[in-house]
Protein backbone atom coordinates (compact mmCIF):
# COMPACT_ATOMS: atom_id res chain seq x y z
CA UNK A 1 0.00 0.00 0.00
CA UNK A 2 1.57 3.38 -0.97
CA UNK A 3 2.29 5.41 2.15
CA UNK A 4 2.90 9.10 2.69
CA UNK A 5 6.64 8.58 2.42
CA UNK A 6 6.34 7.07 -1.07
CA UNK A 7 4.00 9.81 -2.11
CA UNK A 8 6.21 12.69 -0.97
CA UNK A 9 9.50 11.27 -2.15
CA UNK A 10 8.26 10.09 -5.52
CA UNK A 11 10.46 10.99 -8.48
CA UNK A 12 9.34 14.18 -10.18
CA UNK A 13 10.95 17.07 -12.09
CA UNK A 14 12.33 19.72 -9.73
CA UNK A 15 10.94 23.27 -9.95
CA UNK A 16 13.87 24.52 -12.01
CA UNK A 17 13.42 21.78 -14.57
CA UNK A 18 9.72 22.51 -14.68
CA UNK A 19 10.45 26.19 -15.22
CA UNK A 20 13.07 25.57 -17.89
CA UNK A 21 10.81 23.24 -19.88
CA UNK A 22 7.72 25.34 -19.08
CA UNK A 23 5.77 22.33 -17.88
CA UNK A 24 4.27 21.21 -14.63
CA UNK A 25 4.34 17.82 -12.97
CA UNK A 26 1.08 16.00 -13.60
CA UNK A 27 -0.63 13.18 -11.78
CA UNK A 28 -2.25 10.67 -14.10
CA UNK A 29 -6.01 11.23 -14.27
CA UNK A 30 -6.47 7.54 -13.46
CA UNK A 31 -5.22 8.30 -9.96
CA UNK A 32 -7.83 10.99 -9.50
CA UNK A 33 -10.56 8.49 -10.42
CA UNK A 34 -9.10 6.04 -7.92
CA UNK A 35 -9.21 8.74 -5.23
CA UNK A 36 -12.84 9.45 -6.02
CA UNK A 37 -13.83 5.78 -6.03
CA UNK A 38 -12.09 5.16 -2.69
CA UNK A 39 -13.84 8.14 -1.15
CA UNK A 40 -17.21 6.94 -2.31
CA UNK A 41 -16.41 3.44 -1.05
CA UNK A 42 -15.73 4.89 2.41
CA UNK A 43 -19.12 6.60 2.48
CA UNK A 44 -20.82 3.47 1.18
CA UNK A 45 -19.15 1.41 3.94
CA UNK A 46 -20.47 3.82 6.56
CA UNK A 47 -23.97 3.61 5.07
CA UNK A 48 -23.84 -0.21 5.06
CA UNK A 49 -22.75 -0.36 8.71
CA UNK A 50 -25.58 2.02 9.63
CA UNK A 51 -28.08 -0.10 7.67
CA UNK A 52 -27.05 -3.55 8.83
CA UNK A 53 -25.81 -3.06 12.38
CA UNK A 54 -29.39 -2.39 13.67
CA UNK A 55 -30.85 -5.12 11.41
CA UNK A 56 -28.51 -7.78 12.73
CA UNK A 57 -29.21 -6.68 16.26
CA UNK A 58 -25.69 -5.36 16.89
CA UNK A 59 -27.28 -2.16 18.20
CA UNK A 60 -30.79 -1.46 19.43
CA UNK A 61 -32.78 -0.65 16.29
CA UNK A 62 -35.12 1.54 18.33
CA UNK A 63 -32.35 3.97 19.29
CA UNK A 64 -30.41 3.63 16.06
CA UNK A 65 -32.85 2.77 13.29
CA UNK A 66 -31.45 1.39 9.99
CA UNK A 67 -30.41 3.99 7.45
CA UNK A 68 -33.35 3.38 5.11
CA UNK A 69 -35.81 4.21 7.92
CA UNK A 70 -33.96 7.47 8.59
CA UNK A 71 -33.91 8.32 4.90
CA UNK A 72 -37.62 7.58 4.69
CA UNK A 73 -38.28 9.94 7.59
CA UNK A 74 -36.09 12.53 5.90
CA UNK A 75 -38.05 12.17 2.67
CA UNK A 76 -41.33 12.59 4.56
CA UNK A 77 -40.00 15.74 6.22
CA UNK A 78 -38.75 17.12 2.94
CA UNK A 79 -41.95 16.33 1.04
CA UNK A 80 -44.26 17.88 3.60
CA UNK A 81 -42.25 21.12 3.47
CA UNK A 82 -41.60 20.92 7.21
CA UNK A 83 -37.88 20.45 6.72
CA UNK A 84 -37.62 23.44 4.40
CA UNK A 85 -39.24 25.67 7.03
CA UNK A 86 -36.79 24.60 9.70
CA UNK A 87 -33.80 24.86 7.40
CA UNK A 88 -34.91 28.30 6.29
CA UNK A 89 -35.30 29.48 9.89
CA UNK A 90 -31.83 28.23 10.80
CA UNK A 91 -30.25 29.59 7.65
CA UNK A 92 -31.70 33.07 8.13
CA UNK A 93 -30.46 33.21 11.72
CA UNK A 94 -26.97 31.95 11.03
CA UNK A 95 -26.53 33.95 7.84
CA UNK A 96 -27.66 37.18 9.52
CA UNK A 97 -25.43 36.61 12.52
CA UNK A 98 -22.50 35.62 10.34
CA UNK A 99 -22.92 38.64 8.06
CA UNK A 100 -23.19 41.02 11.02
CA UNK A 101 -20.07 39.55 12.61
CA UNK A 102 -18.10 39.83 9.37
CA UNK A 103 -19.23 43.41 8.78
CA UNK A 104 -18.08 44.52 12.24
CA UNK A 105 -15.09 42.25 12.87
CA UNK A 106 -13.11 42.98 9.69
CA UNK A 107 -13.05 46.80 10.03
CA UNK A 108 -12.50 46.60 13.78
CA UNK A 109 -9.74 44.01 13.41
CA UNK A 110 -8.05 46.13 10.76
CA UNK A 111 -8.22 49.20 13.01
CA UNK A 112 -6.85 47.25 15.97
CA UNK A 113 -3.90 45.96 13.98
CA UNK A 114 -3.28 49.28 12.22
CA UNK A 115 -3.29 51.74 15.15
CA UNK A 116 -1.18 50.99 18.17
CA UNK A 117 -3.34 52.95 20.69
CA UNK A 118 -6.49 51.15 19.51
CA UNK A 119 -4.67 47.84 19.79
CA UNK A 120 -3.42 48.54 23.30
CA UNK A 121 -6.88 49.69 24.41
CA UNK A 122 -8.83 46.73 23.03
CA UNK A 123 -6.49 43.78 23.38
CA UNK A 124 -6.92 42.93 27.10
CA UNK A 125 -10.70 43.35 27.03
CA UNK A 126 -10.96 41.25 23.89
CA UNK A 127 -8.83 38.55 25.47
CA UNK A 128 -11.45 38.20 28.23
CA UNK A 129 -14.40 38.04 25.83
CA UNK A 130 -12.64 35.65 23.51
CA UNK A 131 -12.15 33.16 26.29
CA UNK A 132 -15.80 33.29 27.32
CA UNK A 133 -17.66 30.43 25.65
CA UNK A 134 -20.49 31.77 23.50
CA UNK A 135 -23.06 29.41 25.01
CA UNK A 136 -22.09 30.47 28.53
CA UNK A 137 -23.56 33.89 27.88
CA UNK A 138 -26.63 32.66 26.01
CA UNK A 139 -28.74 33.25 29.16
CA UNK A 140 -27.54 36.85 29.14
CA UNK A 141 -28.69 37.34 25.58
CA UNK A 142 -32.01 35.67 26.37
CA UNK A 143 -32.50 37.93 29.41
CA UNK A 144 -31.73 41.10 27.53
CA UNK A 145 -33.11 40.32 24.08
CA UNK A 146 -35.88 37.86 24.90
CA UNK A 147 -36.38 34.38 23.45
CA UNK A 148 -37.15 35.58 19.93
CA UNK A 149 -35.01 35.82 16.81
CA UNK A 150 -32.84 38.64 18.14
CA UNK A 151 -31.16 36.65 20.88
CA UNK A 152 -30.38 33.79 18.50
CA UNK A 153 -28.91 36.09 15.90
CA UNK A 154 -26.96 37.81 18.66
CA UNK A 155 -25.42 34.58 19.90
CA UNK A 156 -24.40 33.58 16.38
CA UNK A 157 -22.89 37.03 15.85
CA UNK A 158 -20.97 36.68 19.08
CA UNK A 159 -19.64 33.25 18.19
CA UNK A 160 -18.64 34.29 14.66
CA UNK A 161 -17.15 37.58 15.72
CA UNK A 162 -13.94 36.48 17.44
CA UNK A 163 -12.45 34.09 14.89
CA UNK A 164 -12.86 36.73 12.18
CA UNK A 165 -11.60 39.54 14.40
CA UNK A 166 -8.51 37.64 15.50
CA UNK A 167 -7.62 36.43 12.03
CA UNK A 168 -8.04 39.96 10.67
CA UNK A 169 -5.73 41.31 13.38
CA UNK A 170 -3.15 38.63 12.58
CA UNK A 171 -3.54 39.08 8.83
CA UNK A 172 -3.10 42.83 8.92
CA UNK A 173 -0.37 42.80 11.56
CA UNK A 174 1.76 40.22 9.79
CA UNK A 175 1.87 41.86 6.38
CA UNK A 176 5.36 41.50 4.93
CA UNK A 177 7.48 44.46 6.04
CA UNK A 178 9.16 44.54 2.64
CA UNK A 179 5.80 45.15 0.95
CA UNK A 180 5.14 48.04 3.32
CA UNK A 181 8.58 49.47 2.67
CA UNK A 182 8.09 49.35 -1.08
CA UNK A 183 4.69 51.03 -0.68
CA UNK A 184 6.34 53.79 1.33
CA UNK A 185 9.11 54.21 -1.19
CA UNK A 186 6.41 54.77 -3.82
CA UNK A 187 4.95 57.50 -1.61
CA UNK A 188 1.58 55.72 -1.29
CA UNK A 189 -0.89 57.33 1.11
CA UNK A 190 -1.90 55.29 4.19
CA UNK A 191 -5.36 54.71 2.71
CA UNK A 192 -3.96 53.53 -0.61
CA UNK A 193 -1.40 51.37 1.20
CA UNK A 194 -4.16 49.69 3.14
CA UNK A 195 -6.39 49.20 0.13
CA UNK A 196 -3.76 48.03 -2.33
CA UNK A 197 -1.21 46.26 -0.13
CA UNK A 198 -2.31 45.43 3.39
CA UNK A 199 -5.86 44.22 2.81
CA UNK A 200 -5.15 41.98 -0.20
CA UNK A 201 -2.19 40.51 1.69
CA UNK A 202 -4.38 39.82 4.72
CA UNK A 203 -7.25 38.15 2.83
CA UNK A 204 -5.95 34.56 3.03
CA UNK A 205 -5.51 34.87 6.81
CA UNK A 206 -8.89 36.54 7.22
CA UNK A 207 -10.45 33.62 5.38
CA UNK A 208 -9.13 31.17 7.93
CA UNK A 209 -11.21 33.00 10.52
CA UNK A 210 -14.20 33.20 8.21
CA UNK A 211 -14.17 29.43 7.74
CA UNK A 212 -13.92 28.78 11.46
CA UNK A 213 -16.84 31.19 11.91
CA UNK A 214 -18.90 29.41 9.28
CA UNK A 215 -18.63 26.21 11.31
CA UNK A 216 -19.21 28.04 14.59
CA UNK A 217 -22.35 29.73 13.24
CA UNK A 218 -24.10 26.39 12.71
CA UNK A 219 -22.73 24.81 15.89
CA UNK A 220 -23.83 27.58 18.23
CA UNK A 221 -27.14 28.12 16.51
CA UNK A 222 -28.16 24.46 16.78
CA UNK A 223 -27.33 24.51 20.47
CA UNK A 224 -29.26 27.74 21.01
CA UNK A 225 -32.26 26.40 19.11
CA UNK A 226 -32.23 23.25 21.21
CA UNK A 227 -32.46 25.33 24.35
CA UNK A 228 -35.24 27.68 23.37
CA UNK A 229 -36.98 27.98 20.01
CA UNK A 230 -40.07 26.83 18.18
CA UNK A 231 -38.48 26.48 14.78
CA UNK A 232 -35.12 25.62 13.28
CA UNK A 233 -33.02 22.48 12.94
CA UNK A 234 -31.89 22.54 16.57
CA UNK A 235 -35.49 22.74 17.70
CA UNK A 236 -36.41 19.89 15.35
CA UNK A 237 -33.67 17.68 16.82
CA UNK A 238 -34.62 18.30 20.45
CA UNK A 239 -38.37 18.14 19.74
CA UNK A 240 -38.01 14.84 17.89
CA UNK A 241 -35.81 13.30 20.56
CA UNK A 242 -38.07 14.35 23.41
CA UNK A 243 -41.07 12.84 21.65
CA UNK A 244 -39.16 9.66 20.75
CA UNK A 245 -39.50 10.34 17.02
CA UNK A 246 -36.08 8.77 16.63
CA UNK A 247 -35.88 8.49 12.79
CA UNK A 248 -36.99 12.10 12.52
CA UNK A 249 -34.26 13.14 14.94
CA UNK A 250 -31.60 11.41 12.83
CA UNK A 251 -33.03 13.00 9.70
CA UNK A 252 -32.64 16.43 11.32
CA UNK A 253 -29.08 15.65 12.42
CA UNK A 254 -28.19 14.49 8.92
CA UNK A 255 -29.58 17.73 7.52
CA UNK A 256 -27.40 19.70 9.92
CA UNK A 257 -24.31 17.86 8.67
CA UNK A 258 -25.27 18.52 5.07
CA UNK A 259 -25.84 22.20 5.82
CA UNK A 260 -22.42 22.43 7.48
CA UNK A 261 -20.84 20.69 4.51
CA UNK A 262 -22.48 23.05 2.03
CA UNK A 263 -21.40 26.13 4.01
CA UNK A 264 -17.84 24.93 4.39
CA UNK A 265 -17.44 24.06 0.72
CA UNK A 266 -18.93 27.34 -0.47
CA UNK A 267 -16.53 29.25 1.79
CA UNK A 268 -13.63 27.19 0.42
CA UNK A 269 -14.77 27.96 -3.12
CA UNK A 270 -15.03 31.66 -2.27
CA UNK A 271 -11.59 31.59 -0.71
CA UNK A 272 -10.14 29.97 -3.81
CA UNK A 273 -11.67 32.67 -5.96
CA UNK A 274 -10.03 35.35 -3.84
CA UNK A 275 -6.62 33.74 -3.71
CA UNK A 276 -6.16 32.39 -7.21
CA UNK A 277 -2.77 34.08 -7.27
CA UNK A 278 -1.36 31.62 -4.76
CA UNK A 279 0.73 28.68 -5.82
Amino acid at each position, binding site marked *: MPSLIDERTEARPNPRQEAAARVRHATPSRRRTVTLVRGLAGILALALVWEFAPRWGLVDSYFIPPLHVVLQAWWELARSGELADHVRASMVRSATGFALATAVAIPLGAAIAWYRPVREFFQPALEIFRNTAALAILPVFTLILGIGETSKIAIVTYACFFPILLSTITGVATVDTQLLRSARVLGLSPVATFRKVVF*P*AAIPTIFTGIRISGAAAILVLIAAEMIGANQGLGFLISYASMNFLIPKMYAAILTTSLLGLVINYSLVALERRFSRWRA
Partner: protein
Amino acid sequence: MSSSITLRDVGQTFLVRGDDDRQLREFVALDGVDLEIAAGEFVTLVGPSGCGKSTVLDLVSGLTKPTSGTVSIDGTPISGPGLDRSVVFQQYTLLPWRTARGNVEFALEAAGIAKRERAARALDYLELVGLGEFANRYPHELSGGMKQRVAIARSLSYEPGVLLMDEPFGALDAQTRERLQEELVGIWRRTGTTVVFITHDIEEAVFLGQRVAVMSSRPGRIKEVIDVDLDRQTAENQDLRATPAFASYRHRIWSLLREQTLQAARPEVVNRVA
Protein backbone atom coordinates in the same frame (compact mmCIF):
# COMPACT_ATOMS: atom_id res chain seq x y z
CA MET B 1 16.48 62.09 -16.29
CA SER B 2 19.00 61.78 -13.49
CA SER B 3 19.84 63.52 -10.26
CA SER B 4 22.90 64.03 -8.12
CA ILE B 5 23.09 62.85 -4.52
CA THR B 6 25.03 64.53 -1.73
CA LEU B 7 25.62 63.12 1.72
CA ARG B 8 27.30 65.64 4.02
CA ASP B 9 28.61 64.64 7.43
CA VAL B 10 25.75 62.19 7.84
CA GLY B 11 25.38 60.41 11.18
CA GLN B 12 22.78 57.89 12.25
CA THR B 13 22.29 56.53 15.74
CA PHE B 14 19.71 54.05 17.02
CA LEU B 15 18.54 53.22 20.52
CA VAL B 16 19.53 49.65 21.36
CA ARG B 17 19.57 47.32 24.32
CA GLY B 18 22.64 45.24 25.06
CA ASP B 19 22.43 41.48 24.71
CA ASP B 20 24.03 40.74 28.07
CA ASP B 21 23.56 43.82 30.27
CA ARG B 22 20.05 44.90 29.07
CA GLN B 23 21.27 48.52 29.21
CA LEU B 24 19.65 51.07 26.93
CA ARG B 25 22.29 52.85 24.90
CA GLU B 26 23.03 54.50 21.62
CA PHE B 27 24.35 52.57 18.69
CA VAL B 28 26.24 54.61 16.12
CA ALA B 29 25.40 53.10 12.74
CA LEU B 30 26.88 55.86 10.63
CA ASP B 31 29.30 58.61 11.59
CA GLY B 32 30.46 61.48 9.40
CA VAL B 33 29.59 59.95 6.05
CA ASP B 34 30.49 62.19 3.13
CA LEU B 35 29.66 61.09 -0.37
CA GLU B 36 29.11 62.98 -3.56
CA ILE B 37 27.40 61.19 -6.45
CA ALA B 38 27.08 62.99 -9.78
CA ALA B 39 23.97 62.84 -11.95
CA GLY B 40 23.98 59.77 -14.17
CA GLU B 41 26.76 58.07 -12.27
CA PHE B 42 26.82 54.38 -11.30
CA VAL B 43 28.27 54.03 -7.81
CA THR B 44 28.59 50.81 -5.87
CA LEU B 45 28.83 50.72 -2.11
CA VAL B 46 30.70 47.79 -0.65
CA GLY B 47 31.52 46.93 2.93
CA PRO B 48 31.45 44.22 5.57
CA SER B 49 28.06 43.08 6.80
CA GLY B 50 26.65 45.33 9.50
CA CYS B 51 28.64 48.37 8.38
CA GLY B 52 25.56 50.45 7.62
CA LYS B 53 25.32 50.07 3.85
CA SER B 54 21.57 49.57 4.00
CA THR B 55 21.23 52.49 6.41
CA VAL B 56 22.80 54.73 3.77
CA LEU B 57 20.21 53.50 1.30
CA ASP B 58 17.33 54.01 3.75
CA LEU B 59 18.52 57.60 4.20
CA VAL B 60 18.73 58.34 0.49
CA SER B 61 15.35 56.72 -0.16
CA GLY B 62 13.86 58.84 2.63
CA LEU B 63 12.62 55.88 4.68
CA THR B 64 14.63 57.19 7.64
CA LYS B 65 15.94 60.61 8.62
CA PRO B 66 19.58 61.14 9.56
CA THR B 67 20.39 61.97 13.18
CA SER B 68 22.88 64.55 11.97
CA GLY B 69 24.10 65.97 8.68
CA THR B 70 22.16 66.33 5.45
CA VAL B 71 21.21 64.15 2.53
CA SER B 72 20.22 66.04 -0.59
CA ILE B 73 19.06 65.27 -4.10
CA ASP B 74 20.07 67.90 -6.68
CA GLY B 75 20.96 70.17 -3.76
CA THR B 76 17.56 69.92 -2.03
CA PRO B 77 17.51 68.16 1.35
CA ILE B 78 15.34 65.04 1.44
CA SER B 79 12.17 65.24 3.50
CA GLY B 80 10.82 61.74 2.88
CA PRO B 81 10.27 59.13 0.21
CA GLY B 82 9.49 60.47 -3.22
CA LEU B 83 8.96 59.40 -6.78
CA ASP B 84 12.22 61.03 -7.82
CA ARG B 85 13.93 57.99 -6.30
CA SER B 86 13.16 54.28 -6.43
CA VAL B 87 14.44 51.25 -4.58
CA VAL B 88 15.00 47.62 -5.52
CA PHE B 89 15.32 45.52 -2.37
CA GLN B 90 17.09 42.21 -1.96
CA GLN B 91 13.94 40.33 -1.08
CA TYR B 92 11.37 40.20 -3.81
CA THR B 93 8.85 42.85 -2.97
CA LEU B 94 6.33 42.07 -5.67
CA LEU B 95 2.66 41.92 -4.75
CA PRO B 96 1.93 38.20 -5.06
CA TRP B 97 -1.70 38.79 -6.05
CA ARG B 98 -0.80 40.88 -9.07
CA THR B 99 0.71 39.74 -12.34
CA ALA B 100 4.08 41.03 -13.52
CA ARG B 101 2.28 43.75 -15.44
CA GLY B 102 0.00 44.50 -12.48
CA ASN B 103 3.06 44.96 -10.31
CA VAL B 104 4.58 47.51 -12.66
CA GLU B 105 1.20 49.22 -12.92
CA PHE B 106 1.11 49.39 -9.13
CA ALA B 107 4.02 51.84 -9.24
CA LEU B 108 2.41 53.77 -12.08
CA GLU B 109 -0.82 54.09 -10.09
CA ALA B 110 1.20 55.54 -7.22
CA ALA B 111 2.83 57.94 -9.66
CA GLY B 112 -0.60 59.09 -10.84
CA ILE B 113 -0.22 58.00 -14.46
CA ALA B 114 -3.51 57.93 -16.38
CA LYS B 115 -5.12 54.51 -16.56
CA ARG B 116 -4.95 54.26 -20.35
CA GLU B 117 -1.26 54.93 -20.40
CA ARG B 118 -0.42 52.50 -17.58
CA ALA B 119 -0.84 49.22 -19.43
CA ALA B 120 1.28 50.30 -22.38
CA ARG B 121 3.98 51.80 -20.19
CA ALA B 122 4.12 48.69 -18.01
CA LEU B 123 4.60 46.51 -21.08
CA ASP B 124 7.36 48.81 -22.37
CA TYR B 125 9.33 48.43 -19.17
CA LEU B 126 8.77 44.67 -18.95
CA GLU B 127 10.06 44.59 -22.53
CA LEU B 128 13.12 46.56 -21.38
CA VAL B 129 14.03 43.88 -18.82
CA GLY B 130 13.23 41.13 -21.32
CA LEU B 131 9.99 39.92 -19.78
CA GLY B 132 7.50 41.10 -22.38
CA GLU B 133 5.97 37.67 -22.84
CA PHE B 134 5.68 37.01 -19.10
CA ALA B 135 3.49 40.05 -18.42
CA ASN B 136 0.50 37.99 -17.33
CA ARG B 137 2.36 35.64 -14.99
CA TYR B 138 1.98 35.81 -11.25
CA PRO B 139 5.15 36.15 -9.13
CA HIS B 140 4.94 32.54 -7.97
CA GLU B 141 5.12 31.49 -11.60
CA LEU B 142 8.38 33.38 -12.13
CA SER B 143 11.93 32.38 -11.21
CA GLY B 144 13.97 34.41 -8.72
CA GLY B 145 15.83 36.25 -11.47
CA MET B 146 12.61 37.06 -13.30
CA LYS B 147 11.00 38.41 -10.15
CA GLN B 148 13.95 40.70 -9.61
CA ARG B 149 13.69 41.88 -13.21
CA VAL B 150 10.05 42.75 -12.64
CA ALA B 151 11.11 44.69 -9.54
CA ILE B 152 13.66 46.57 -11.65
CA ALA B 153 11.04 47.27 -14.33
CA ARG B 154 8.68 48.55 -11.65
CA SER B 155 11.36 50.82 -10.20
CA LEU B 156 12.26 52.28 -13.59
CA SER B 157 8.69 52.60 -14.89
CA TYR B 158 7.99 55.97 -13.32
CA GLU B 159 11.34 57.30 -14.52
CA PRO B 160 13.01 58.26 -11.26
CA GLY B 161 16.19 60.30 -11.27
CA VAL B 162 17.87 57.88 -8.88
CA LEU B 163 17.75 54.10 -8.73
CA LEU B 164 18.76 52.65 -5.37
CA MET B 165 19.54 48.95 -5.18
CA ASP B 166 20.09 47.02 -1.97
CA GLU B 167 21.88 43.78 -2.84
CA PRO B 168 19.24 43.06 -5.47
CA PHE B 169 21.04 40.02 -6.86
CA GLY B 170 22.13 38.60 -3.51
CA ALA B 171 19.66 35.73 -3.53
CA LEU B 172 20.24 34.65 -7.15
CA ASP B 173 22.40 31.85 -8.48
CA ALA B 174 25.78 32.83 -9.92
CA GLN B 175 24.85 32.60 -13.61
CA THR B 176 21.60 34.50 -13.30
CA ARG B 177 23.40 37.12 -11.25
CA GLU B 178 26.07 37.67 -13.91
CA ARG B 179 23.49 37.97 -16.65
CA LEU B 180 21.45 40.47 -14.65
CA GLN B 181 24.57 42.48 -13.87
CA GLU B 182 25.30 42.80 -17.58
CA GLU B 183 21.69 43.71 -18.30
CA LEU B 184 21.67 46.29 -15.54
CA VAL B 185 24.71 48.03 -17.04
CA GLY B 186 22.87 48.06 -20.39
CA ILE B 187 19.71 49.49 -18.85
CA TRP B 188 21.72 52.13 -17.03
CA ARG B 189 23.39 53.18 -20.29
CA ARG B 190 20.05 53.46 -22.05
CA THR B 191 18.19 55.32 -19.30
CA GLY B 192 21.03 57.42 -17.89
CA THR B 193 19.61 57.13 -14.38
CA THR B 194 21.89 57.63 -11.39
CA VAL B 195 22.40 54.25 -9.76
CA VAL B 196 23.53 53.53 -6.21
CA PHE B 197 24.12 49.83 -5.82
CA ILE B 198 24.84 48.17 -2.50
CA THR B 199 26.61 44.84 -2.33
CA HIS B 200 28.98 42.80 -0.22
CA ASP B 201 30.34 41.09 -3.30
CA ILE B 202 33.62 42.74 -4.35
CA GLU B 203 33.51 41.43 -7.92
CA GLU B 204 30.00 42.71 -8.36
CA ALA B 205 31.06 46.12 -7.04
CA VAL B 206 33.98 46.37 -9.46
CA PHE B 207 32.03 45.01 -12.41
CA LEU B 208 29.15 47.46 -12.04
CA GLY B 209 30.53 50.63 -10.51
CA GLN B 210 32.18 53.56 -12.19
CA ARG B 211 33.26 54.28 -8.66
CA VAL B 212 33.33 51.93 -5.71
CA ALA B 213 32.81 53.42 -2.24
CA VAL B 214 34.35 51.13 0.37
CA MET B 215 32.80 51.39 3.81
CA SER B 216 34.28 50.58 7.18
CA SER B 217 32.21 49.44 10.11
CA ARG B 218 31.58 50.50 13.72
CA PRO B 219 30.90 53.26 13.14
CA GLY B 220 30.01 53.12 9.46
CA ARG B 221 32.17 55.46 7.41
CA ILE B 222 33.24 55.81 3.82
CA LYS B 223 36.81 54.57 3.97
CA GLU B 224 37.84 55.15 0.41
CA VAL B 225 36.27 55.83 -2.96
CA ILE B 226 37.98 54.08 -5.85
CA ASP B 227 37.55 55.09 -9.48
CA VAL B 228 37.14 52.04 -11.65
CA ASP B 229 38.43 52.65 -15.11
CA LEU B 230 37.62 49.54 -17.08
CA ASP B 231 37.04 49.41 -20.80
CA ARG B 232 33.49 48.10 -20.65
CA GLN B 233 32.47 49.09 -24.18
CA THR B 234 34.85 46.75 -25.99
CA ALA B 235 34.46 44.20 -23.24
CA GLU B 236 30.94 43.26 -24.36
CA ASN B 237 31.95 39.86 -25.63
CA GLN B 238 34.91 39.04 -23.47
CA ASP B 239 35.25 38.01 -19.88
CA LEU B 240 35.90 41.34 -18.20
CA ARG B 241 36.35 39.62 -14.86
CA ALA B 242 39.38 37.74 -16.21
CA THR B 243 41.35 40.85 -17.22
CA PRO B 244 44.39 41.88 -15.13
CA ALA B 245 42.92 45.38 -14.58
CA PHE B 246 39.79 43.86 -13.06
CA ALA B 247 41.86 41.60 -10.84
CA SER B 248 43.93 44.48 -9.54
CA TYR B 249 40.83 46.52 -8.65
CA ARG B 250 39.35 43.51 -6.99
CA HIS B 251 42.51 42.93 -5.00
CA ARG B 252 42.74 46.55 -3.88
CA ILE B 253 39.22 46.53 -2.48
CA TRP B 254 39.73 43.08 -0.99
CA SER B 255 42.81 44.39 0.86
CA LEU B 256 40.88 47.40 2.20
CA LEU B 257 38.13 45.14 3.52
CA ARG B 258 40.65 42.60 4.83
CA GLU B 259 42.37 45.28 6.93
CA GLN B 260 39.04 45.92 8.59
CA THR B 261 38.23 42.34 9.40
CA LEU B 262 41.65 42.02 11.01
CA GLN B 263 41.09 45.23 12.98
CA ALA B 264 37.66 44.09 14.01
CA ALA B 265 39.02 40.76 15.19
CA ARG B 266 41.76 42.21 17.38
CA PRO B 267 39.88 43.94 20.24
CA GLU B 268 37.83 40.81 20.82
CA VAL B 269 40.96 38.83 21.49
CA VAL B 270 42.13 41.49 23.93
CA ASN B 271 38.82 41.34 25.72
CA ARG B 272 39.00 37.63 26.14
CA VAL B 273 42.49 37.83 27.66
CA ALA B 274 41.45 40.57 30.08
